[in-house]
């Protein structure tokens, strides 16, 4: 699990400084609900999630939806107390962990609380991450009924030996079946893929991409495997039991994915995300509105253990373990473990770092002088789109997407 950032202590009442809500009426508010449970722990995963055995006494999966609902109510009261105008939610995202380990009814209850406390915007996107093994057709009946609009499936790979290294337990054939159920009920679908797993050949990756494309989803996310400290895979790699990740191999696979997805009608809208016109919705509509809110640095409240929140330059994060988290929420106080208030320059750094990742790009007029000066060189190196820059936006080229961090550093003159 990644360590939480170092920050300042968060106040017990969760009170936000006035500056964090001063411009709230111009900013969208989203809700992230973390579901910190998994049936088993995957070897590569460093997310804040717990199996039953790891959870320990005093916390129960059964109560979680009620505790999360309590934090939703708490969120509304904190925003009100700070003087923020009421905002209907722009998007809601249930992530994990494995949200579908909870009965669909409980997910619906949490969404109901969100609707009750904040209201949902008319076109609000509501996404649930799903494990293809822990859903049935009825799951989607309940979710669609409750107002969920989109399901994101953790597929990772279609190749058994790759899934074994990742310690994913799902049966590959369950994925298309689940995608089909969701699509039939009018839900948007996304499949998540991971490339660059030790032992995965380019042909393996091609197989996974082909399998994903056959599913007729309207959205694909593809991530290179990141070996996070503290995971089982990191330990295996340190001991030489699995080969190291090769960035050149990952670059090749990224390029292959982009080409195959494009061929299938997908277009990129963020470094690791593609959408297409499908099922009566445009590619634009099939983008993840919730994730775009992150990259555009909008406001969001993260519910649940370890969840991060952001309100116009104030970031905070909750206690990681479900037990102390639950205790705080039940006492009606803030479950936050720490927070940071960003200064203007740090916010600029984050705006550049996040904005450059999306196809909408960064307005060059918002760049500081050294950033504007760097643009020409980045065009010459083939990493920024020259035509877009002339029109006033810094947008990554295909090659530039693989170098987004280098581009960020050069725009910041770091």
């Amino acid at each position, binding site marked *: 699990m*990644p360590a939480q*950032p170092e*920050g300042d202590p968060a106040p017990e009442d969760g009170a936000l400084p006035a500056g964090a809500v001063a411009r709230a009426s111009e900013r969208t508010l989203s809700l*992230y609900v973390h579901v910190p449970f998994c049936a088993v722990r995957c070897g590569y995963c460093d997310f804040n999630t717990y199996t039953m055995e790891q959870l320990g006494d005093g916390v129960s999966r059964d109560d979680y939806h009620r505790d999360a609902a309590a934090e939703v109510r708490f969120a509304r009261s904190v925003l009100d107390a700070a003087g923020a105008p009421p905002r209907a939610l722009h998007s809601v995202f249930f992530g994990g962990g494995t949200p579908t380990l909870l009965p669909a009814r409980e997910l619906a209850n949490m969404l109901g609380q969100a609707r009750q406390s904040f209201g949902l915007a008319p076109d609000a996107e509501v996404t649930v991450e799903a494990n293809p093994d822990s859903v049935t057709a009825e799951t989607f009946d309940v979710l669609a009924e409750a107002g969920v609009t989109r399901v994101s499936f953790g597929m990772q790979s279609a190749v058994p030996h790759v899934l074994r290294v990742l310690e994913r337990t799902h049966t590959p054939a369950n994925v298309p079946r689940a995608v089909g159920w969701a699509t039939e009920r009018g839900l948007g679908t996304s499949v998540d893929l991971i490339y660059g797993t030790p032992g995965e050949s380019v042909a393996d990756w091609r197989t996974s991409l082909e399998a994903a494309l056959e599913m007729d989803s309207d959205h694909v996310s*593809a*991530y*290179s495997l*990141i070996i996070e400290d503290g995971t089982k895979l990191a330990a295996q790699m340190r001991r030489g039991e699995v080969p190291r990740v090769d*960035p*050149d191999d*990952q*670059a*090749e696979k*990224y390029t292959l994915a982009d080409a195959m997805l494009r061929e299938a009608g997908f277009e990129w809208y963020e*470094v*690791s995300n593609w959408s297409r016109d499908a099922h009566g919705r445009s590619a634009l509509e099939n983008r993840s509105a919730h*994730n775009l809110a*992150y*990259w555009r640095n909008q406001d*969001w409240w*993260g519910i649940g253990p*370890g*969840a*991060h*929140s*952001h309100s116009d330059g104030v*970031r905070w*994060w909750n206690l990681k373990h479900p037990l102390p988290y639950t205790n705080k929420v039940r006492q009606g106080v803030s479950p936050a473990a720490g927070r*940071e208030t960003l200064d203007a320059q*740090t916010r600029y*750094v*984050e705006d550049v*770092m*996040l904005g450059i*990742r999306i196809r909408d790009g960064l307005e060059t007029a918002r760049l500081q002088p050294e950033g504007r000066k760097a643009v020409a060189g980045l065009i010459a*190196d083939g990493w920024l789109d020259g035509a877009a820059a002339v029109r006033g936006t810094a947008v990554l080229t295909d090659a530039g*997407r*693989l*170098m*987004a*961090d*280098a581009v*960020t*550093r050069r725009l*910041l003159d*770091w």
Partner: protein
Amino acid sequence: MSPLAVNPPAPASTDPSVIRNFCIIAHIDHGKSTLADRMLQATGVVTPRQMKAQYLDRMDIERERGITIKSQAVRMPWNVDGTDYALNMIDTPGHVDFTYEVSRSLAACEATILLVDAAQGIEAQTLANLYLALENDLTIIPVLNKIDLPAAQPEKYAAELANLIGVEPEDVLKVSGKTGEGVEELLDRIVRDVPAPQGKKDAPSRAMIFDSVYDTYRGVVTYVRVVDGTLVPRERIQMMSTGATHELLEIGVISPEPIPSKGLSVGEVGYLITGVKDVRQSRVGDTVTNQQKPAEDSLGGYEDPKPMVFSGLFPVEGSDYPVLRDALEKLQLNDAALVYEPETSTALGFGFRCGFLGLLHLEITRDRLEREFNLDLISTAPSVSYNVTLEDHSEVEVTNPSEFPEGRILEIREPMVSATILVPSEFIGAVMELSQSKRGEMKGMDYLSEDRVELRYRLPLAEIVFDFFDQLKSKTRGYASLDWKADGEQAADLVKVDILLQGEQVDAFSAITHKDKAYSYGVLMTGKLQKLIPRQQYEVPIQAAIGSRIIARENIRAIRKDVLSKCYGGDISRKRKLLEKQKEGKKRMKMVGRVEVPQEAFVAALSSDEDNGKDKKK
């Protein structure tokens, strides 16, 4: 009868007839310091409680490396047949870099102990110093040390020594510095065999400086051997090479700590302090006389120290430059042979071009700078001094590849050395092959004994300073020993090889090499850098060039991926901190054009240690 002196003779009033001045010639690890320790104990100068191993080696580095860099003189009383004698033991440096200092130490003595390891036999450097001793007409007392070792072959090496200096094998003393066996006999032998010093008591005073050492509290401590007359406290003395005069604040003998005396007279050895702060004002080989009543002629033999090997020293942290400057200034107070001047490198920043007597001198100086002044240094590849004649017949001296003239060159001359190599005869072939590959010219070969051979070569100094000794050792399984001395200069077909990163010359890696070696240098350096420099945002060609002609090339491939693929709400703070860390990391990089080169890459590329897979330094 106790050999300990009953009534030790007092300095300044000691009759020359009871003075015995001697030194010890030995190879680095043949046990000179241990034997010296035993003599200090046997004569009662040091009590067992005071005994530190290798008492005379003052500096840590000396103790660690087992090398005596600075010589000292200890006065020891000893009684033979009822007469009390004053024995002055003058410690000599054992390394070839310090040949001149050795020669001055020898000039201060009437005799030398030729100390040889009974398990190893004589080594080339010892032989070289033995020649020097014979040229100084010293009496030689042959001694085999370490006879307690199981591998000792005293009979064999006694025969070798006897054969070498023309004595009977029975005349070779056998001692053990470790157990003390034979040490008292050796002291008796010194009294019996070493001639008493000769000198004119009433003549104007003349004393030869054989060492000078900077002491933080006392200033420069100068070690002298009085030849004529007497030096007394408070008189004004004069240095005959420069004419500089000083007041003699203190004079005395070392036994084993400094003991002030009423003076030093004919034949005596001791120290003097004048309050000067810089050893260059009290130079080894110079003659000290009285200012009022000066001697007409100096004792002769004085030479200015001449640096042979040059290297640029640069602080790893640019901000340490002033610390390095002050450190070199301090070291120079104690090291008249160290010369330096500021140098600017585009790759390495501000530093100093330093001249050294040899490679060991370079290494010791570097060690001391790092250790005593807490500096992290990069040193450029050692270079020698070339004389270049240009087309217009003007002459340029080049000690730094960056000074190599651009225009047309008529001739380049490089310094040569004559080298003596001693090896077991089975390695003759290997040594000849190596010497030839290092452009050596064979001058002769002699059998010292049945299975030991002395090979003589004339070689370019530049070849010696690079890795000759390491290779010699490895090709002879460590058995070879090497000695060399400067031997004029010789024209050679030399070129300057430049290393270019993305077309930008990196001055720190330029080298002057023989034309035939240019290609292998180019391949070696481009290959090393290719491994050491991390991949950049673009492809970086690394080239080796002579002028505009490319002789070797490697490529550093461009990074293809520099992006964290996942960046959602909870990742943002983490990712920003990662970028901040990368920004900090960049500060440790030196920019060569657009190429970011980690500091460590310079260090690694410039160390020759990597080639032979071992670390020369401790």
